């Protein structure tokens, strides 16, 4: 029996096949400052990765027609890696004898990469949690290998990395540190606050709109709002200033991240607790569980999936917001990103932005996998 082609995968497959026909795959410039000339995928002069790319595309196409999620997953990962490999090899060829030439990734690369990874994500979602983990490893391991092998070193993105090698690692650590430093107070305040909101409607009616209001303040404005009181505070109490708390830097960044993070944690704690069926609550009470036993044995385990979803949303949001915190001197990957944006060096901006995206996607996936299978 002939099935109709899959409605989700077919557009992705068409996008992957058609994009290189009308968008440039790479952009080649004589040096970092001048505008690049487009180079189409069909003009590339490297053989080996092309065959890998073609076979991966064939798998995706067949998978879309046959509705085979495994084929899509495998083919999609092959296409994703072949595109990177292809770009790296071509960059190596172009830059031979032209050390100042810059090879950047073009629109077709990004569109194809996005389409194919979205298809992989959807296929993995359909196949279950083991496939999600496999997809994550299927991106991380070959990419690590390609990066370590030096095949990608000629790409402009990696040239920017080579120039900033000494600040890249600390920036990643600082970024993670900002998120971690914000998550500890967020959980310590947000979970009890959610508990209080759940038990006391009057409190919830004040707390929830307040936290919602904070969410509507643009992040740069919130950083700005915190500058005045914090610098005033550190002037008033010199000890705080010496401890690093001031109008700019890490302190306002962490405070702002906590303020943004409180809403999803508090709201999900409260709604998780509210999702415990009244009959279960009544049974626990009637059985003779005291308040603490009810909380630890019944309420918390039953609210946990919703709470964990709140933590996931919060961490992913904080990873993104921490990039903006670079504007008030908090450092992190945002600093590299804004350097690139202000200098008009798109590859430098990407050097800051891509790890932020990778971190957010990885954390999201790992926390999804950590969630207990819903009963």
């Amino acid at each position, binding site marked *: 029996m002939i099935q109709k082609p899959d409605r989700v995968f077919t557009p992705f497959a068409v996008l992957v096949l058609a994009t290189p026909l009308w968008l440039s795959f790479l952009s080649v410039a004589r040096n970092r400052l001048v505008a690049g000339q487009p180079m189409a995928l069909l003009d590339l002069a490297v053989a080996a990765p092309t065959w890998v790319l073609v076979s991966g595309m064939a798998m995706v196409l067949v998978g879309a027609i046959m509705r085979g999620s495994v084929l899509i997953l495998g083919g999609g990962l092959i296409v994703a890696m072949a595109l990177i490999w292809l770009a790296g090899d071509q960059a190596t060829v172009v830059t031979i004898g032209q050390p100042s030439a810059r090879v950047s990734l073009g629109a077709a690369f990004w569109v194809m990469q996005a389409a194919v990874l979205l298809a992989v994500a959807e296929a993995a979602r359909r196949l279950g949690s083991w496939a999600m983990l496999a997809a994550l490893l299927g991106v991380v391991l070959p990419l690590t290998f390609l990066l370590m092998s030096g095949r990608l070193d000629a790409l402009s993105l990696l040239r920017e990395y080579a120039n900033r090698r000494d600040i890249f690692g600390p920036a990643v650590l600082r970024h993670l540190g900002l998120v971690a430093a914000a998550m500890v107070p967020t959980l310590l305040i947000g979970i009890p606050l959610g508990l209080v909101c759940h038990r006391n409607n009057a409190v919830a009616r004040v707390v929830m709109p307040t936290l919602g209001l904070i969410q509507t303040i643009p992040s740069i404005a919130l950083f700005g709002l915190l500058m005045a009181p914090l610098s005033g505070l550190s002037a008033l109490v010199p000890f705080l200033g010496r401890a690093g708390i001031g109008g700019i830097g890490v302190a306002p960044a962490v405070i702002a991240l906590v303020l943004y993070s409180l809403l999803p944690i508090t709201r999900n704690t409260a709604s998780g607790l509210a999702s415990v069926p009244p009959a279960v609550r009544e049974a626990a009470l009637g059985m003779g569980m005291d308040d603490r036993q009810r909380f630890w*044995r019944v309420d918390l385990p*039953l609210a946990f999936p919703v709470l964990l979803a709140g933590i996931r949303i919060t961490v992913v949001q904080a990873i993104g917001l921490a990039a903006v915190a670079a504007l008030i001197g908090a450092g992190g990957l945002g600093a590299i990103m804004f350097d690139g944006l202000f200098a008009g060096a798109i590859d430098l901006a990407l050097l800051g932005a891509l790890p932020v995206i990778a971190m957010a996607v990885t954390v999201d996936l790992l926390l999804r996998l950590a969630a207990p299978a819903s*009963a």
Partner: protein
Amino acid sequence: MIDFDGVAKAFDGRAVVQDFNLHVADGAFCALIGASGSGKSTILRMMNRLIEPDAGRIRFAGQDVADLDPTLLRRRMGYVIQSAGLFPHWSVARNIAAVPALLGWDRARTQARVAELMTLLRLDPALGRARPHELSGGQAQRVGVARALAADPDVLLMDEPFGALDPITRAALQAELARIHRETRKTIVFVTHDMDEALQLATQVVVLEDGRVLQDTSPADLLAHPANAGVGAFVGRLDRGLKLLSLLAITERLEPGADGPEVPDDIDCRSALSRMIELSVDRLTVVDVTGQVRGHVALAGLMRS
């Protein structure tokens, strides 16, 4: 076992229970029956202090419940609610073992008790590892009753436990509960709005209206002598005679000698009458499980009240 003395309770200024007195004897099966809003659930929930009375005294095994720690009191009283209220994140076995776990029983004793209760409630031992969402409504309520009985409580409080079940499952669980009451002689307080259920199971029926007792007596006396028109309406005017017959075992109207078609000796007189009508006879031979003739019943004998 349980005594209410002048108990009253109002919610938002509306009296739900007024000047309520009740004595439930040790080993009794007491059914609290009334329409919605008659205060029957409130009375039950005052026994294990889920609700505190505004006035009056409630004694449990001679002690004022107000002097007892509510959580410790509740562990001495099994509690079954309509929707079972099983813990969805725990296995059936762990649900049954909930109160023993609170009481700190050791593993071996708990496991033995869970196995014993699953047998008593006729639950397949393989269900021990199942999660509540895998159970049918009847199975879930069996687990609910097993959980309430787990720590061998002094009384069993049941709030419309079979209200959400289909008629066949309900009848099976009613028979189960009657058997458990016979075997364990536990004091049971049972809230229902189903008069047939109350008459069939209880030894003491308390009819409630607007938080007051209309009548508090045995099922047979309730049918024979309803205290007023309100109770009469509740027990049903036209089929009261049949309900009375249903309380009577066939062996109580036995006359010597075999006469007519055979029926088993464990049915009630209402079923015997039904059988007579079905077969167009006025006499039935009563035999025991081995086929031995125990005597016969006659239509005239059934009529004699």
